[in-house]
């Protein structure tokens, strides 16, 4: 599904990503872990076209996506949920969700897709006509994830979805994510600071350090290897 090979990104003289290679598969969650500044957000921004890479390639279903504009990558079915302030605060909850459906959902089915999102996140339905700026942190996170799902994506790129959420809400979120990614359906790349909860749902984990992939393994390996955890994840 997603194939990343030798991806390098520079910000001036700084190497933000250095020769990063990995894959994301349908129905699987690949988590990207690492400390602040390790390059996790840069990786997602490069995959969705917001940042230009300087070497290497990323392809989605055999089509090269590096070098494409963000809107054209989104149209292929790659939905990037940016960190933090991804809601459009000036629009209502309903408008935010409808905005997700414009590209990959046929005109007649858009309402039904938005209603599906309300089924999944009933709190959003109660506030559908309110400005998105009135939502709590947890509700905002539901809204941006709901909006990404309204795009009918094939691959989700999630940047720190647990940021600012309570442990209970984080657990619910991870359970939802797991439920969405099954079989040969939706795949996900999950960037997380909260390694523990990300590893609890992921199928594959890579650890970035100073822009390089230093570990790529099954989550079980992290559970088994305390040194590895302490060294790279700090717990």
């Amino acid at each position, binding site marked *: 599904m997603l194939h990343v090979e030798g991806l390098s990104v520079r910000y001036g003289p700084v190497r933000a990503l250095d020769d990063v290679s990995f894959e994301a598969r349908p129905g699987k969650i690949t988590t990207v872990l690492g400390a602040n500044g390790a390059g996790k957000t840069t990786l997602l921004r490069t995959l969705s076209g917001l940042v230009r890479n300087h070497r290497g390639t990323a392809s989605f279903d055999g089509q090269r996506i590096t070098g494409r504009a963000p809107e054209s990558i989104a149209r292929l079915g790659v939905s990037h949920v940016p960190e933090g302030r991804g809601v459009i605060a*000036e*629009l209502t909850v309903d408008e935010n969700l409808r905005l997700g459906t*414009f590209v990959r959902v046929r005109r007649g089915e858009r309402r039904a897709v938005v209603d599906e999102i309300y089924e999944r996140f009933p709190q959003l339905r109660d506030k559908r006509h309110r400005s998105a700026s009135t939502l709590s942190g947890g509700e905002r996170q539901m809204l941006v994830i709901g909006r990404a799902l309204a795009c009918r994506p094939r691959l989700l790129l999630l940047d720190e979805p647990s940021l600012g959420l309570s442990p209970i809400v984080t657990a619910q979120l991870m359970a939802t994510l797991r439920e969405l990614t099954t079989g040969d359906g939706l795949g996900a790349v999950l960037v997380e600071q909260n390694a523990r909860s990300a590893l609890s749902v992921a199928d594959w984990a890579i650890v970035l350090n100073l822009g390089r992939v230093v570990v790529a393994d099954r989550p079980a390996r992290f559970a088994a290897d305390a040194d590895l955890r302490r060294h790279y994840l700090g717990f």
Partner: protein
Amino acid sequence: MALFVDILLSGVAQGMVFAAIALGLGLVSRATGIVNFAQGAMGMFTTFIAFSLLSRGVGYWPAFVAALAAGAVLGAAVERTLIRPLQGKPALNPVIVTIGLLVVLEGVAGSIWGNVARGFPAAFSQRGLVIGRTRVAFSHFDVFLVCAVVVLVVAIVALFRWTALGLRMRAAAFSPEVSRLLGVRVGRLFTLAWALACAAGSLAGLLVAPLSSFSPYYMDLYLVYGFTAAVLGGLLSPVGALVGGLVTGIAIALVGGYVGPDLQPIAALAMLLLVLMVRPQGLFGTAGVRRV
């Protein structure tokens, strides 16, 4: 009393023109975050296109529609060729470009059509209507002018509020990056915003031309008034532009009627200063969301 009513009525008619200019300024400011100083000059240029057509025997309405279409094309072309390449540069750069465009358009218009003042025909009679037994300072043409601008404002409000295209345009203006991640072709929508804004500017140009001495510079003063209206209305909402236009128009008419027409531009600048000092977000804006 009759004088007061006449002043008020002429203020309303003028104010509607200011509103059309303010609406165009607001559309551009909202989409691409800059003030288009060429807004008036672009309207001037397309009105001269209508003037050329009229002098070749084309009917008023075909020429009117052609000028609006030319405005849309000119707006789109300016956005694509002059404004888009400056994306990501300091906001002052495109603003300076629009000032340059203003000078170029006026120069080119002068060399094609000459720097002389002429008359421009009105669609309807410009003689005041007779109400009861008195003739008021409001003509059939003024009625048309008010209706045209109200239709424009209602159409823009409807576009933004009730259509998928309008929702995308708002999203692109508020949050271009998130919109692009959702597959919205933000660049095209900015082009469209410029096209709409300059079509609105063309409308203003066509409506003002019969009321003033028609030369390559006739829109300069209207841009100042339109800018005052836009700032007063908060630059963000079409309804704000309408109210800002009316308030500015009536204020200018009162100054012209009771103090003297020479003081009108100064009064407009004083109003502009006052608004910027007392309520910089305008009557309809919210503090903190303005980026001019």
